[in-house]
């Protein structure tokens, strides 16, 4: 993974010093609340319902075991010994003290980490596929490009006070999009043109929140050398012309929609004409330099399906189940990608205790070259596990609570922290996740239902991506009471779509039984091997709606 040089290190240390001074001035009343607010947000610090929340960047989800140990250690000494992995591959601490944050940042800097631009109206952490670099059907490894974008966006002097937050995600596979790129402000799809040159399909104006939209293509192919000048052009147009009168209409999607993609593209091209070929054009030497950080680890020459694996697959249904659900094909023979799920019943989705973080770091050292990734679905990934060691890893993962074999199934939910923590939330989301986990605890049944994305958000800000869940649950406030609206038919991959609202919202205790009714409709209507989303697309919303709102006889 990327290693800081003296310059990168100096920049994060200077940021710590700057933030330390800003915090000091705020605590001395030299900086007003109103002035400190965007300054602290630009460094990931929110003031939440009960305590501040610090969002630590995990650039494009890459984490070393040493970094994860540091996070575990920080969570013990400055917080309540746990953290929450978010959908944008970051880690959130829910209980730090404001006056401790500069010290936390200084400790993060020791392991090349920071909280730069994890919030605020600026360019946020760039995200990508958690399987980057280890799958066979990838055009190229997206991580060097993510790092290029990270450096370009870090302390970009022109774009620190945009109309609204700005999120970029990168995908590099034709077959799938695990980074939900089409619901980002900019989605980048790495591809090769007919001449074999690397470039990007650029998608703009996707996003969730109050006005969910799937992005539209602004450029079919932008050569990689032009990436940064093209991004500068898009964001410069947005910075000047995006709405600033209403925060709910300030995202780039609203501008793109208002102008239409043709006109928006025309304006971006007019701006780009001045920037193209200028100094920010990326030379080959920089691509080579960055790619050098992501070269393959020292794989051994192995074969697929060694005896140690096949015999256990034959003898242990539990292991076979875990292997089928929670591991993924690796490009290197004899290796496998393993997801350590953070979806154990009784634990909030995406939460990890300090002990679990320590354990995951140990597992990474023992089984996966000391590196991990964080996924958009709020799980951890060991990318390079020898197949002959899978049984050992499974045993260890079970002990640590990482082996719930439900990856991609109904109970592998995406869930925001919700009203238990977040000041913005209208309703709690974690108890809904817990209720669903308790109700749907029969693995055979879950396997029979197959792949279903269920996403839960506690409010319209949609941190739990409810719009793009096959099933989405949104917390709403009805005269001071918490209710939940259910949507159906959303998707976040290459077939991205925004779910449709089923109808009037439900009380908290009704949710599981409604989900059960929806599952019954699916099971009754599906054809062989048909996924939930495909059945929905074929039969439409009506039978689901009828079942959900049918009066009991």
């Amino acid at each position: 993974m990327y290693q800081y040089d003296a310059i990168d290190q100096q920049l994060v240390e200077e940021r710590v010093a700057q933030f330390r001074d800003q915090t000091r001035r705020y605590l001395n009343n030299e900086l007003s609340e109103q002035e400190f607010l965007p300054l602290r947000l630009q460094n990931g610090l929110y003031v939440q319902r009960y305590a501040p929340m610090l969002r630590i960047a995990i650039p494009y989800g890459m984490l070393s075991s040493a970094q994860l140990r540091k996070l575990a250690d920080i969570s013990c000494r400055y917080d309540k010994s746990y953290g929450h992995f978010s959908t944008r591959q970051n880690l959130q601490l829910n209980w730090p003290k404001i006056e401790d944050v500069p010290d936390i940042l200084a400790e993060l800097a020791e392991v090349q980490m920071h909280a730069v631009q994890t919030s605020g109206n600026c360019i946020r952490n760039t995200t990508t596929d958690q399987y980057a670099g280890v799958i066979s059907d990838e055009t190229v490894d997206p991580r060097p490009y993510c790092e290029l974008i990270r450096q370009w966006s870090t302390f970009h002097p022109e774009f620190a006070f945009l109309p609204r937050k700005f999120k970029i995600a990168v995908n590099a596979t034709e077959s799938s999009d695990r980074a939900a790129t089409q619901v980002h402000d900019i989605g980048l799809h790495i591809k090769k043109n007919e001449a074999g040159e690397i470039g990007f399909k650029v998608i703009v104006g996707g996003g969730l929140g109050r006005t969910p939209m799937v992005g539209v293509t602004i450029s079919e192919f932008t050569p990689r050398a032009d990436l940064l000048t093209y991004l500068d052009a898009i964001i410069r147009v947005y910075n000047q012309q995006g709405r600033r009168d209403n925060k709910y209409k300030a995202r780039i999607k609203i501008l793109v929609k208002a102008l239409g993609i043709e006109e928006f593209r025309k304006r971006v091209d007019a701006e780009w004409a001045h920037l193209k070929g200028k100094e920010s054009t990326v030379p080959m030497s920089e691509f080579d330099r960055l790619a050098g950080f992501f070269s393959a680890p020292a794989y051994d020459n192995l074969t697929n399906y060694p005896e140690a694996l096949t015999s256990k697959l034959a003898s242990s249904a539990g292991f076979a189940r875990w292997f089928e659900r929670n591991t993924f094909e690796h490009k290197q023979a004899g290796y496998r990608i393993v997801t350590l799920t953070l979806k154990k019943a009784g634990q909030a989705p995406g939460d990890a205790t300090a002990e679990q973080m320590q354990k995951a770091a140990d597992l990474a050292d023992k089984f996966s070259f000391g590196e991990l990734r964080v996924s958009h679905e709020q799980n951890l990934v060991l990318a390079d596990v020898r197949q002959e060691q899978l049984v050992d890893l499974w045993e260890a993962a079970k002990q640590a609570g990482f082996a719930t074999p439900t990856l991609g199934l109904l109970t592998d939910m995406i869930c925001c922290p919700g009203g238990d923590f977040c000041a913005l939330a209208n309703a709690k989301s974690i108890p809904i996740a817990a209720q669903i986990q308790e109700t749907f605890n029969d693995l055979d049944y879950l396997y029979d239902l197959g792949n279903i994305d269920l996403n839960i958000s506690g409010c319209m800000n949609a941190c739990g991506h409810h719009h793009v869940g096959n099933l989405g649950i949104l917390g709403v406030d009805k005269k001071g009471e918490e209710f939940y609206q259910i949507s159906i038919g959303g998707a976040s991959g290459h077939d991205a779509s925004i779910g449709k609202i089923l109808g009037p919202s439900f009380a908290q205790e009704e949710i599981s039984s409604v989900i059960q009714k929806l599952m019954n409709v699916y099971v009754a209507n599906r054809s062989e091997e048909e996924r939930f989303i495909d059945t929905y697309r074929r039969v439409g919303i009506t039978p689901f709606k009828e079942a959900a709102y049918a009066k009991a006889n």
Partner: protein
Amino acid sequence: MPKLIKNGEIVDNTYYWLQGAEQAATANSIVPAQKWLADKDSIGDIAGIWLEAGDGVEFLQDVDLKQFQVIGINFPAFTDGRGFSYARLLKERLNYQGEIRALGNFIPDQLGFLIRVGFNSFQFNEEVDLEKALALHKPFSIAYQGDVSEPRPLFLRR
């Protein structure tokens, strides 16, 4: 005389920021760009113009900017970042060489970025302590991106 920060020093503010369109312009006035556009044949000697957020810089494309000693850019709120792009475009696109002055509700913690996009003078709100503000002018000793004083990104210099 009121003070301001200019080219890294605290100096006397010799210009007058003319905010209302109805006020008469003098040789040391910085007048609203829209007023100047409307009255430019009769307005006489002025120090320069100032842009409101939303004005953009396109209308200055065919204007001889050498006639202005100063171009001001107003920040209606410090979180309104349009002025960052305006300054950069004045400098890099329109090749304006004169003073670019930040006006309005920007704050000292923005100085570093404001300088990098081309501002060189800063007329803060009255309550700002200029000595303390000046100390914040360079939070970072190096930058990844190019900017108006060093157009080459770090990857060309690493």
